[in-house]
């Protein structure tokens, strides 16, 4: 492994050279979506320029090339999260669709009136609403495991919720609003003791943490490509093969069938059973290239560098009077959510934008988390491997100046 060279990495991301309102861009909204390296951008142009046709459908050369690239990306995803087989990697349009898929197939087939589903109080709306919809459809009950003021799951309370009626546990691996990394191995151990499957929402974790689904022993793992330096419009559902085999399909159409007559349809094998219609070929190929790029740097080095950024930013933030960090879990990823005394996050966002700094101000699709902390919104700086300590200095200077202006 080579040494981590952030300046070299920055050269690979053309957008980082953009000027915003005349200033150098400081992009700190990576938890919303992160920027793309040139290799990923080029891969899409290259595919459409040289190798593009529909997949799985033709004997002609281009269809074969396109299919090879598309299926090659599936193998890269499989290796990246260490799944046992390509059959366990389903391409969908994002983490949101992956969770909805599980709710509407596994959920509908296995969850009935009076059954219980457990989530936590720090979930993104996409890991709340699909379960509420399923509960409405089935008469099941949604249970919410509480968090403490640091933003950590209260494990004892979570354990108390797990009982013989629990049919599924769906928790976020790393929280987008707080940065908290959940003790997912412990959660899975508790669940599996009672034979309960666990879904991990890895939308935030995937660019920061080495994920090994076999080591975690999770039953489902979902993430979106766009938060992994890859294009928008692609997500991954990982599921254990036995579970996926037993699940009814999600949507009907082309590609997901083996044989169709007007009397009956025989479904295709995994993973195609869950991939009805022409998939997002180019962006899946782009995801494969993003994974190659990340492997070239090494997830371990990325994690180590980002941990350094977070602790630098946290220490600096703590020196600012009137700044309160929201989410101080002991185990945390590179997210700094905060509020300022008497200054609304929206004003913080506009003020920082005028300095070229992009942060997120809002509820981060986690309104229950905002309610818990009794704030209408927070400001959130979220870091990626291409951010630098100098950028954090620019952010902190900006915050100090805007506090002054607001007086």
């Amino acid at each position, binding site marked *: 492994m080579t040494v981590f060279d952030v300046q070299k990495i920055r050269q690979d991301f053309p957008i980082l050279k953009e000027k915003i309102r005349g200033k150098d861009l400081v992009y700190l909204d990576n938890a919303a979506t992160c920027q793309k390296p040139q290799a990923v951008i080029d891969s899409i142009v290259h595919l459409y320029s040289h190798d593009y046709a529909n997949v799985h459908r033709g004997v002609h050369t281009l269809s074969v090339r396109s299919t090879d690239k598309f299926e090659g990306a599936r193998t890269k995803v499989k290796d990246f999260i260490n799944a046992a087989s390509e059959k366990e990697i389903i391409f969908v349009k994002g983490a949101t669709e992956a969770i909805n898929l599980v709710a509407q197939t596994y959920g509908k087939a296995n969850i009935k009136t009076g059954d219980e589903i457990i989530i936590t109080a720090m979930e993104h709306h996409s890991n709340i609403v699909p379960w509420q919809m399923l509960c409405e459809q089935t008469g099941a009950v949604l249970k919410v495991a509480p968090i403490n003021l640091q933003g950590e799951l209260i494990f004892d309370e979570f354990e108390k919720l797990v009982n013989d009626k629990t049919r599924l546990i769906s928790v976020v691996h790393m929280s987008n609003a707080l940065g908290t990394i959940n003790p997912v191995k412990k959660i899975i151990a508790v669940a599996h003791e009672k034979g309960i499957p666990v879904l991990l929402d890895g939308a935030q974790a995937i660019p920061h943490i080495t994920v090994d689904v076999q080591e975690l022993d999770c039953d489902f793992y979902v993430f979106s490509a766009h938060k992994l330096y890859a294009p928008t419009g692609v997500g991954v559902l990982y599921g254990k093969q036995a579970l996926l085999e037993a699940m009814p399909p999600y949507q009907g159409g082309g590609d997901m069938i083996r044989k169709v007559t007007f009397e009956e349809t025989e479904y295709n094998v995994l993973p195609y059973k869950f991939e009805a219609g022409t998939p997002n070929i180019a962006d899946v190929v782009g995801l494969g290239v993003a994974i190659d790029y990340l492997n070239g740097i090494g997830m371990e080095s990325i994690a180590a560098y980002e941990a350094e950024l977070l602790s630098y930013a946290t220490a600096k933030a703590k020196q600012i009077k009137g700044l309160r960090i929201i989410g101080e879990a002991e185990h945390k990823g590179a997210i700094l959510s905060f509020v300022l005394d008497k200054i*609304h996050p*929206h*004003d913080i966002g*506009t003020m920082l934008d005028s300095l070229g700094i992009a942060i997120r*101000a809002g*509820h981060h699709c986690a309104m229950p988390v905002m309610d818990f902390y009794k704030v209408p919104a927070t400001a959130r700086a979220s870091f990626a491997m291409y951010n630098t300590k100098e950028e954090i200095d620019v952010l902190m200077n900006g915050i100090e100046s805007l506090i002054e202006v*607001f*007086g």
Partner: protein
Amino acid sequence: MFDDLRDLYQEVIFDHNRNPRNFRIIENADRKVEGFNPLCGDRLTLYLQMEGDVIADASFQGSGCAISTASVSLMTEIVKGKTEIEAEELFKKFHEMTTGKDENFNLEAIGKLAVLAGVREYPARVKCATLAWHTLDAALKNEQQAISTE
């Protein structure tokens, strides 16, 4: 450092944000309507005391960003003593000003409210400025349910 933002954050806005006017509850108000901007979590309750068709008193409670706080604070000052029709006219003008579609908009004619004209250049912030007025509009139409800018 924030020179670019002078048009948006004028001193008057900071002043109203620090010391919002009419920030109180009117007990037994004739009209009470809640306004909510789900995007940023701004929430306000507007109270009106009517005398015939004249707004005799206006006040608010709630929390929001500087733009929305200044906007509602200014609004409660200005609509006091105005008839419903006059207030609706002002709402229309304010809306025209903040959405910035009319290049020849006469800023003089809108008086004090002109300090909020800066939001025209910040599409993401227009709703912060208009939340108060949408809430007033609902109150004047006597709509009781909470209104939302989404």
